Structure formats: C-alpha cells, structure tokens
C-alpha cells in the first residue's frame, strides 16, 4: 500500500545529512516526478489519478524541504525530536539581538530614504551572515551531532532570513 512512512531523504534516495549533493537531489526529484506526476496519468483510471496527485504532492514537499538549507536543517532536527521553531523557544543572546536591531534600523533608514544602494549593502552583509550560519549548521548537525546547539543556530538563521525577506519587500516598494 501507499507508504508515506519513509522520510524525505529516504524517499529521494539520499543520505540523512545536512550536507547535500544538490545535483543528485535535483536528479532524484525529476526521476521521481517523471514516474508519479499527474501528467503521466491524465488518461489513467480514477484511482491512479488520485494516487498520482498524492504522490506528486508528497515528492514536491520532500524536494522543497530538502532543497532549502533552513527547512532541511529544521527537518533534520525534527527527525531527532527537536522542534526548534516552537513558540516557547525564544531566548536569544544579547549581542545577537543588538546586532539585529542595528540592521533593522539600517533597513528602516534605507526605506525612508528610498536608497537602493543602502539596501544592496545590507543585503550583502546579511547574505554573508546567512552563509556563516549555514556552515555552522553543517558542523553542528553532521560532525558534532549537537542538536540543541544546532537548534540555537537555526533560530538565529530564522531571524536573519526574516530580515532578508523584509529587505526584499523593501525592494518591491522601490518599484
């Protein structure tokens, strides 16, 4: 019967780790979709059409989760029983928060001044920060297997990601 018990890595035939061969992920995703996508069942019988939609949905979810570093790390921690993004997990070190606040102020100033160059600079800084967190996650999850520590890093990454998204929204408003 329909086996949804496999985790996303197993479904795509990949090792359970934060480090990822993205070319292999893309290939596995396409190979799977080539078998289960609803377009392959447009002329099939009803039960197959229904199952095809469920499988293709499942494969899309697995792919999207593994493809994005944040979601992949969060999912790996979930497999370890750690829900890093729970609402009651909110404590953050002071120096981190101060830095975030400074960046928020920069963002507001750039928005007020409609200053695209300032947004570019901020985006660059934030992207560097994001890459550092990602490197840290790889270390903490794959090497040290220190999942609570990785959960802290993940929460910091979330803050920075959110800020990046707001920078993106500010670009939109520049028109």
């Amino acid at each position, binding site marked *: *019967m*329909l*086996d949804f018990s496999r985790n996303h890595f197993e479904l795509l*035939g990949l090792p359970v780790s934060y480090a990822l061969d993205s070319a*292999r992920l893309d*290939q*596995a995703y*396409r*190979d*799977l*979709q*080539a*078998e*289960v*996508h*609803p*377009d392959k069942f*447009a*002329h*099939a*019988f*009803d*039960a*197959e059409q*229904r*199952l*095809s*939609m469920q*499988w*293709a*949905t499942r494969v*899309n*979810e697995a*792919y*999207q989760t593994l493809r994005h570093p944040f979601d992949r790390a969060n999912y790996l921690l979930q497999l370890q029983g750690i829900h890093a993004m729970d609402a009651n997990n909110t404590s953050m070190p002071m120096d981190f928060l101060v830095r975030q606040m400074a960046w928020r102020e920069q963002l507001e100033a750039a928005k007020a001044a409609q200053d695209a160059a300032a947004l570019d600079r901020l985006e660059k800084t934030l992207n560097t920060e994001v890459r550092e967190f990602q490197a840290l996650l790889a270390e903490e999850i794959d090497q040290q297997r220190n999942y609570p520590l990785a959960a802290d890093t993940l929460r910091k990454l979330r803050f920075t990601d959110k800020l990046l998204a707001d920078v*993106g929204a500010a*670009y*939109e408003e520049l*028109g």
Partner: protein
Amino acid sequence: MALLQISEPGLSTAPHQHRLAVGIDLGTTNSLVATVRNGVAVVLNDAHGHGLLPSVVRYLKNGVTQVGHGAQRQAAEDPYNTIISAKRFMGRGIKDIPDLATMPYQFINAPGMVQIKTVAGVKSPVEISAEILKVLRARAEASLGGELVGAVITVPAYFDDAQRQATKDAARLAGLNVLRLLNEPTAAAIAYGLDNAAEGLYAVYDLGGGTFDISILKLTRGVFEVLATNGDSALGGDDFDRRIYCWILEQAKVHTLDDRDKTLLMARAREAKETLSEHPSAHITVVLSTGEVVNLNLSEETFNEMTASLVNKTLLPCRKALRDAGLTVEEVKGVVMVGGSTRIPRVLAAVGEFFGEGGKCSPLTNLDPDKVVALGAAIQANVLAGNKGGDDWLLLDVVPLSLGLETMGGLTEKIIPRNATLPTARAQEFTTYKDGQTAMSIHVVQGERELVADCRSLARFELRGIPPMVAGAARIRVTFQVDADGLLSASARELGTGVEAHIAVKPSYGLTDDEVARMLQDSYAHAHDDMAARNLAEAQVDGHRLIDATEAALRENGAVLLNDDERARVGKLLAALKLALDGEDLAAVKRATEALNQGTVEFAARRMDSSVKHALTGQRLDALEI
C-alpha cells in the same frame, strides 16, 4: 479516423489507437484550436482558411448565436448583444472590472461573477466562453473526423482560482473533457523549447489582448520547470486600444457617444494600433451617428507616449518574477515573446532593453506569437491523451498567487505561498477565540496583500460541531490541496473529535452542478437535443475510457502485480462494465463504472509503488555510474 495506424515496433501488441486530442487557446481577442498530426503540431483552420477565431459572441433574438468573424462584423450595429473580450469578465465581480464606462453592455451584479443581459436572456461569461469553445470543438471534430478524447485549455499564468474554475466550467459546458488547464507562457515554452532544443533559463513574456504574464523557466533536457510567475490579469492590448480611443475623444472633442459609436471607435482604435506595428503613422477616419466626421493622424511617437505607462506596468512584474526565482537579469538566456501585443514595436524594444542590459539577450520572436500557445497546448494534449511520442518530457508549473485564509482582524494568513510547485498541499492549525465556540467560519482568499479586503475572496465554508471548550483549546487543522490544474480544494478538521468539513473551492463564485445542468438544459432545448441521450453518451465515454486505462494497466504489469484471483476479479468487473455499455441503461453504466473504479484502487497503489521503486533504482544506478 480515415488513416490506418501502425504501432511502433516493440510496443504493446494491442491495437494502438491514436486518440484525438486538441489544445485550445481561449484568448481575450482571438481563440485557436490546434492538434498534433503526423507528429507535427498544426493550427486547425475553419472552412474559409482562418485559424484565428475572434473571441466575439453575438446573441440574436431568434435564439441563434453567432461566434467569430460574423459576430465581429456586427459588433457596432448590435453593441448590447455582441460580447467582445468576455475573458476579462471570467470569475470576476462587477467591482473588479475596470473601464466599465467604455463598454456598452448591460451588466448584472450577480454574486461572485458578473453577468450580462442580452436579447437571448442573461448570460454569464462562462456561457459566453462556452460558445467560443463549442465552435472550436466542432471545427476540430469536423477536421479530425471523430470525437475528441479531450482538450488542454490554456489560461493566463496569473489567473487566480476563480478565473481558472470559470474556464474549466466553460469547457465542461462546451462538452469538452479537460485533460489539463495549462498556463499560456508554459504552453509557449513547450512549443518553443521543443522546437529549438533550448536549454537554460528563459523568460516568457506574454502580452495578450487582456492579460499579461511573465514566467521564468528552467529548461533542462526533458524538463520544463517554472521557477516563478507574475503578471497582471487585467492588462493587455485592449488597454492600448483604450488609450487610443480616449485620445480620439480628446482630439476630436466629442463628448457624448452612443453605444454604436463607442464600439466603432474602439474598433478603429484597434486598427490604428495594428497599423502602427508596421507603419510610422496611422490614419483614423470615423463617421459618427450624428454625421460628424472624425479625421485624425496618429504618429508612432504620440502612440508611444500615451502608452508608455502601460509598457512600464509590465516591467515591474518581470522584476518581481526574477526576484522570486532568485535570479538576476544577466542569467536569463532568452526571452520568448508571446501574444499579439508583443508586435507593438515599443513593447519589443522595452523588453529587449530590460532583459538585454548587456545587449546579449534579444527577444525571441521566431514563432508566430498568436499561435505558439495553441501549438504548445496541442503538443501537451497529445501526450496527456496517451499518444506516446518518441520523447517524453516533464512539466512542473507553479501556483501564481498565494492562497490563505482570513484570521482575526481581517488579516490574511498565507497557507500556500506563491510559486509553490504543483501539485501541492499544506496544512495549518488554528484555534477558537471565544469560550464555548462550536463553529468556525473559514474564508479562503488568494493574493499577496496583508488585508483580506485587498485579496480575492474564493470561498467561505463552516466547520460545525466543535465541542464547547475554552478559547484556544480546540485544534482545527485546515488543509489546502492544489491540483495539477492549479485548482484548490480545502478541508477543515477538529483534531479532538474528528469533525470535518470539505469544500472544492467553488460555490461562492463558480457554478454549482445545478447551474451547469440548467445551462446545459437551456442550450440543448434550442438544439432540440435530448438531455437523457447526452447523459448516457457522457457516461459511455467515461466507461470506455476506464476500460481502456484499466486494460492498458493490466497489459503493462497486471501479471506481476496481481495474483490470479485478483486478476480474475478485475476481469469480472471489466466484463460487467462492457456488458453494461452494450445496453442503454444509464444507471447500470454508472454502477458498473463505479464498481470497476473501486475494484482497481489496490492495483493502482501497487502500480504507483512499483513506479516509485523504479525511479529510485534508476537513480541509484546513475549515481553508481558517476
């Protein structure tokens, strides 16, 4: 079929029958139907050799409906009953329609979707569009010499759920089996990509008569992956016409126009625009009903000035789509130009400037921008109908606009983000806000804005029977599923008790089954057709389709995946359905079809599992080879 068919060597020994399938581009200004014939996609012409069918429907007093060129010619004489650009009203309420004043129609503010009063009664945009589809269907069946197995109907990528559902309803009303709703830019990419063996990142810029789409696609061997899409479902060539129309009014200092003159001036405005695509200036001459003569000369320069803001309006979505795809302009290898409005020289130039900042990316126009969408749809229809060609490809499209629901304070909570790959599903938990609350009203919306009031309302449904608890204690899981056509269904479930409510997101704007039945009755009352015969015919088509699909599946791996008993059971159900199909008993056909459907659930599951295993083994082998 007139031609004998010979199956490919090595394939199934069963008679390989070519299934008749078409692609239909249901456009704002023109519509087309295309098919794959002898391996080549071709647009099907009418008896006069016209491929393009003007999307114009005229209702006459005597119950006759005119569609296409004939209707277009009479537009100025009969403005109230001649509906032009009905696509602009699909799935739209009266408040969503801009420029109402320039249109002569008697709109009726019906809930969900606007309707139009004509001499033949009140018509919904769905019925009007169905008239166009019926003509194309008849054209295809006459030309191909048989009944169609199905059709792929194209829609603007930026069409929301309401507009998509309305399109599917129109096809159903026209008696078409919809194999898939396909996004117009994606259809163009198929036609273009397969023709040019293109690889890499491409943009498809599609400016039609009434809609604008931009899609960013990644083309790799055999895969068309849409990375992001954006657009404006109320921006197109019509708006350019309207700018000219307003300019004429201003220049000629005419203020009051009757409806005949309005329609006439709009037609002249369109002709002037078309002239300007090839000449530096256009002459406009109109004799108004008052006898007044309008005589003007419009230069390309003036035209470009008055439409500059429209051209610019298309560039912002381009920027947003690139951003969503995480790409810069330099990474885009080419821009495919689609839609008649891309013939406007200034549009072509602006797109070239935008994407070719380094001068290396010029717009691709080697396929006819009016036909490329229909051709791509035909190619996809051929594959979906089960006519396997030599090569196979995979098409991965996305949701154009975020889907969410209303939370406290009129705010939108997004559940499925825009640009999620189809099909997709997402669940989220909500809770009650009052002590003892036993029902929850769920309001499904689509759009990017924070406030529900700024998004499109798709449906409302209620979950009742929640046991009384303190506020915040109940856990209600709302699940959204979007299928491969981009259509949403939603369900809600209280996790403690399992109380459940489902909705195919539809009734608040689309047509209920009763309404479709009523419309079918109406249309067949005129044609002196028999509803019962029609129902039986449809059930028989469904039954035969199920037999074909089941037998094909059995041939493929029935021997491996089913044991003798199981095979015998499916065989019995097949035989029963065949027997029912020999008779004329509608209920018996439906019963036997349902029984076979039920009886193949397990077989389907095993087939799917075996496919998944096959994909994974194949992939592991590839990995080993590297």
